[in-house]
């Protein structure tokens, strides 16, 4: 089946209704659509509890004497188990939005609530603990420690959580298996391919069983095949662990595989 790019949102919703809520079937259809590089509209939001809530969020930066607005009154809700793509042109504010949701930055005004916590009100130490337990980060540039074996790299979030070593190692084994790196945990990162490194980075992000996985251009440094594999992995993670996933991406194909695409332009949702 092919989704026509010219159909309206209402028509798309109706089209997806043909799948009778079968997300997997709908996803396949979307993949096919993305593969054809045709625009589409996301399926309806899941109806689970809200995990991320942003209300009238504004973020400005002071550069010299200039005040530059990064986000301007963004409000949105993301439900548990959702796979959301944040898209937009460079400088549109998508990474800023991701960092606000991840508690790496605080809004100039407005509410950022994740898993019931108002991140703006949290102190630095509590916020770190919250990030460690609730959020997993996947970065475009992987950031694996080159002198640590893959297995030890995967343990790092557990180190900050003061998880016992034995327990960490068990988790690493499970995750390595899940991401297809069981035979690579004793290797150094330089001995892995780009795709394997990013899979390791994803596994690392999952070590503390986060509710929310934030990925900033996770396929930006990968070829298309590895990029698809990573998105497949996200799908699997969501399916197996129920993890909510927010991906910042420029890639329409990836955005097409998300449940929902949130587009930003000049700091506002479009």
């Amino acid at each position: 089946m092919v989704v026509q790019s010219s159909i309206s949102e209402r028509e798309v919703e109706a089209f997806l209704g043909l799948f009778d809520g079968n997300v997997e079937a709908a996803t396949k259809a979307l993949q096919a659509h993305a593969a054809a590089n045709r625009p589409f509209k996301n399926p309806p939001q899941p109806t689970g509890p809200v995990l991320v809530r942003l209300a009238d969020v504004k973020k400005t930066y002071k550069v010299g004497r200039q005040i530059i607005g990064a986000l301007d009154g963004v409000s949105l809700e993301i439900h548990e188990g959702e796979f959301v793509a944040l898209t937009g042109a460079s400088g549109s504010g998508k990474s800023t939005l991701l960092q606000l949701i991840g508690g790496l930055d605080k809004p100039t005004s407005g509410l950022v609530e994740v898993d019931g916590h108002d991140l703006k009100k949290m102190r630095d130490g509590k916020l770190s603990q919250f990030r460690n337990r609730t959020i997993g980060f996947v970065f475009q540039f992987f950031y694996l420690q080159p002198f640590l074996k893959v297995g030890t790299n995967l343990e790092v979030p557990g180190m900050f959580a003061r998880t016992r070593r034995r327990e960490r190692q068990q988790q690493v084994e499970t995750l390595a298996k899940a991401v297809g790196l069981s035979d690579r945990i004793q290797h150094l990162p330089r001995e892995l391919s780009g795709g394997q490194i990013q899979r390791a980075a994803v596994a690392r992000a999952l070590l503390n069983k986060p509710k929310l996985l934030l990925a900033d251009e996770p396929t930006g440094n990968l070829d298309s095949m590895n990029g698809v594999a990573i998105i497949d992995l996200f799908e699997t993670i969501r399916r197996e662990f129920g993890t909510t996933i927010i991906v910042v991406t420029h890639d329409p194909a990836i955005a097409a595989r998300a449940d929902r695409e949130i587009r930003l332009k000049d700091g506002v949702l479009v």
Partner: protein
Amino acid sequence: MIRLRDAAVLALTKLRTRKVRTTVTVVTASLLFSSLVLASLVAGGVVDSAKRFTAGSLSERAIVNLQLFPGMSEIYNNPDIQVRAQELQAKVVANKKAAAGRLGIAYDPATEPKPVEGDAGNTYLNTESLAARQAMAEYTARQPTAQDTAKQLATPYQPKAFYSFGASNIDGRLKQMKNGKEDFTEKLDVGMSYGPIQDVTNGWYYLDSSITKPFLVEQKYLDAQTDKTALPIIAPYSKVESALGLAKLSKTATPQQRLDRISDVRARAATVRLAVCYRNSVSQAQVDDAIRAAKEIEQNKDNKEYQKPSLIYGLPDSGACSPAPVKTDTRTASEKTLASKQDQFGREFGQTVDPAQQKVTFRVVGLAPDGFGADGFSSIDALVSMVAGSSLQGMWVVPQDMFDALPNKADYERFLPVKTVDPLSGNGMPPTGQLIEFASAADAKRFVTEQSCSDFDCASKPHITYFGSNSVLIQDIMDSATQALGVAALVIAAIAALILMGMVGRVIGDSRRETAMFRAIGAKRNDIRAIYATYTFFLSLLVALAALAIGVAVALWLDTQFSGEATVRAQLTFVGADGGQQFHLFGLWWQALLAIVGLVLFAGFVSMLLPLSRNLARSPVKDMRDET
């Protein structure tokens, strides 16, 4: 906060970055600290060696020598003594007039030396005057002795013991009898000067046996001595070496040759016998007259008008130290009567004394280190002398207990030390002193610091010096070394901290994206601090280990180069020490080493503070975006 083990795992990865720079940093900083390590090891070695060389002897004892040096101006210009001298002069003149009249001899009071000389406002006692000397003797007899002063001043410092320390009273001349004979052709050195005793002919000291014991030769050698009436003496090493007929070793002699020589001298020292002939001024004058008369007669043997002196003395038996015999006496009966009356007159006023002479034979019972400059002077000399500076250097010493055990002790009575200071003695010997032993070096030091005179007030306060023990000096060395090391350590630590800061700053700077990533995945600021503190600890530990390795290596090299020479010097300095002892320039001064290691770690810690605080102040968001 992150567990220490996990912090260590992450910190160790930092050491693997920038290996060349890390190596250069570690080497540079460790070279700086190794100088401290080296200094502490050498200081530790010197002090340990000094302690070992004097173990069981004087090293742990704190002994000081208290001496009184009354100001000469205080006596000569003392108006009270001058008044008393004038009184005595009047009596002397009156008594002499009466005695001359009674004996029927002429006496002119004008020939009597004036007791007080000088201009008005600057008068002084004339030591040629009998009255002046008597007045001075009365004055000094009233002054407290060194013993009295020592007990009075030392009591608040809890002294352990007092020992007398006296110089022999030589009212006359001592002349060495080389090969058992007096050499009458030799000119006597009549000039006297203060300073260290160069030879036994200048006199000797009497010292308590607890002080002299470490300087005695082995008991088996003492037991072998048969002539128990000879005066036992501890003599300077080089004098004994010379008396044994051993030529000085050349400067190129190896340390082993020198040690062999020391062993030889130690083994044979007790066989050395030295003889001196004592003559009082009258006896010596008779000998001088005999020499002069013989020379005069020889010069005038062809002069028919020459008249020989009426009383001629002959030279005494050169091996007997006997009085000069009367060779010819052609005086008339009246001349002899007049001479007899004048002799009686002189005796009444203490101006005539009988000739006195005595042969004194010494047997060597111990060895004292030579004085400074006895055998050249080098840096090793300086080092060893520094730690042994207060031993019996260059002294001739009679052990008091051995002296007391002499069956013929009374024979040496005239050589016993005088108890009071004689301002006229001036024979180069220091006045009688008093040794005081304290419980600790600190007590001794406090006593010296608080009670000893300085150059300006030695006329009114006692002169107190450390004696016979190097414990105070060792403590001073340790204190000085600690102070010097402390100052050097601060400078070095500051420089090293800057060097380390460059390295740590670079590593932390390089790791800013990683830090940002750590923060993103939940690291608290304290976790980051722990990781970098652990990294800095490891880096500093590397510096410390390298500094220890370099310092130990250089110190061991120095030890192998100079230990032999230092051992020779030490064996010469601590002559009573075990002959097998080695003087090392390498010793573990644990406190100093631990302090240096602590300092390295502290410098590392300080070096981390600024870069880390900057790093933690950075925005992780910005650092993750910055891909350069």
